[in-house]
């Protein structure tokens, strides 16, 4: 199952660029949108709240970012329309190996996965399988 689009939220442009190549070549999607921090993706998501069809199926979210980090974004998402939480699979994608971060991610019901960098083809295959076929 292919996703129409994937949101990639990370402040490291090298990672974003490398990850995009990897995602597209894995066949998960053909459209990867880049966001540098939580605030950028938050603004984009709010704009799409009324047009759920435009929402991405998957969002890969880094934790450590300036301006608005991953946790802060998740807190904001608690306050908005539930469609933004429920129709997107949110996966944490972080370089942190601290158990506190993994534990914290379990506090959010709408988080669907936790991936530790580096991102691998195996991770992407798992993502593809977790997408429920439409209709």
């Amino acid at each position, binding site marked *: 199952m292919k996703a129409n689009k994937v949101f990639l939220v990370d402040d*490291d442009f*090298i*990672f974003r*660029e*490398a*990850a995009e*190549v*990897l995602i597209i*070549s894995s066949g998960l999607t053909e459209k990867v949108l880049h966001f540098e*921090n939580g*605030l950028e993706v938050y603004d984009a998501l709010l704009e799409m709240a009324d047009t759920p069809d435009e929402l991405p199926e998957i969002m890969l979210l880094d934790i*450590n970012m*300036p*301006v608005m980090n991953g946790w802060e974004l998740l807190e904001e998402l608690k306050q908005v329309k539930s469609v933004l939480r429920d129709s997107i699979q949110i996966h944490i994608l972080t*370089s*942190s*190996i*601290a158990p506190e971060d993994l534990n914290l991610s379990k506090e959010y019901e709408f988080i669907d996965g936790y991936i530790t*960098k*580096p*991102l*691998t083809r195996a991770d992407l295959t798992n993502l593809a399988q977790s997408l429920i076929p439409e209709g």
Partner: protein
Amino acid sequence: MSVKIESNIGIHELPLPIAFVNKRFEIKEHSNVFYSYFGFEKTDELPNHLEGLIGKIPDSLREIKKKKTTTFKPISEFISYVSRKGELRWHKLVLYSDKSRSGYYLYFEDVTKKKIAFDLSLQAGRTAKIGSWEVDLVNNHIYWSDITKEIHEVSKNYVPDLEGGINFYKKGEHRDRIMELVSNAMENGGTFDEEFVIVTAKGNEKWVRSICSTEIVNGKAMRLFGVFQDIDQSKRASIKYQVLTDRMRVAVESANIGIWDYDIVNNVLVWDDNMYQLYQVSKEDFSGEVEAWESTIHPDDRERSLMAVQEAIEGKKEFNTEFRVKTSDGSVRYIQGVGKVFRDESGNAIRMVGANTDVSRIKKVDNRLRQLLNTTEKQNQSLLNFAHIVSHNLRSNSSNLSMLTGMLLENTNPEKQQRFLEMIRISSERLDETVVQLNEVIKIQADPNVSSQWVRVKATLVKVLESINAHLEKICPEININIEDELKIYGVKAYVSSIFLNLLTNSLKYRKPDVPLCINVEARKKDNLTIISFKDNGRGFDLQRYGDKLFGMYKTFHGNKDAKGIGLFISKNQMDAMNAEIEVVSEVDKGATFLLKFPN
């Protein structure tokens, strides 16, 4: 001419127990009271032989018969017998010979009471180990009582002499002293009552009390007499007690413990000498009232300390508190006070006794420990930051590298390979930079006291400004410096420069785009600190949100792409290493003020 006095009074009429016996001790005549004296009634059968009255006749009386002459001195003898009432009685019997009548007069006297009294005194003397002695200077005769002999541990047959008696006194101060006293008594009639050590005949050392009186006739000492008491046990006990007391006193003095005694009813406070030492108050200046104590307590501790006394008196709490006192020389001491309240039968507090200890030194050590603990905590915080770095910066770059190299190998498109190589180069550069920064941090923490010295604040600041002159010319900020030329702080020069540089470049970096940048640098002394402040009118930040993370590693707050989150972390570490503090005051859009607090 001679006058003959005739007496008509017969023996029977005498009101005393007198009898006339023949040489076989048969009672021939007796006074009327004689038998009743022995407890006989008139109706009783009266014995007519002395033996029937007093039992066995004493040997001294029996031996009279052997004497050649019938004229001899009266013989007196003590006899005891059990009376008809079953009591043990003592009598003094005196026998007078009567030449004319070939027999003897016997006179009896009941000495039971005297005998008992004498026995008691003997017993008392024995119990109290009090003996007596006497020196007859005229006849040069010396008498020791049995107990005196016992105390000297000599046999009852021992015949004392003056010199021998003195030689029992322990050689040295004791013997010298007794000789001095005895000769003074003999020459001047002096008396004494002193304690000595003697060495007994068996070689035991003993404490004795010797009391001497003198009998003087015509200004000349005739007789010395007195008592001699074995006080060994009590003396040794008191010496032991004295030793303990001395030991206690030394302990109390050397431990700087002061003892106080507060008479609550009369509001009288008594201090021992140590207390005056502790409080550095002279005795004359101390009125002995609680108010005088109050006035020495540090104002900040006064109310609490008085409350503690009050609570102890009310029985709510034991008195055990710590407070500061201001001594008369103006220094501050930490005192630990403990005390106990004494109450009367109805539970009213009447007296409080306690001890004060100077704990200033302990306090100092305690503070030092706290400081060490603080440093340790800071270092722990740094270690956590390290963990964070390893997790984030090192890992994010190394994971990039691992992703990119994998992709490089899989992808054969030369154009894309070129791009991957470029990204690998950036990632490895960033990895290198991170390692350099880490090294910087370790350097600070590895040797926190590198060559501390007095650093001139203004000169250092001017040098830093010169070093970023090119940067400044582009932005043209207004920089006001208000620092005395000679002001110095104690620190590491390189650190101070580095911190100044970091704060200045932060102000340049986070200025407001539309407002001309203005930086004010000031320095002033306050209490024990020299405070240097860097104030700008830049973008500021939300302290409520970031306050606790501001000086953490790799924390950025402006969304600025150049922000690496290492500068303030390093500055903070450098300040810690110099035992100084860095603080910040800021609000979003209202600029930031950093305060550097150096101890003087």
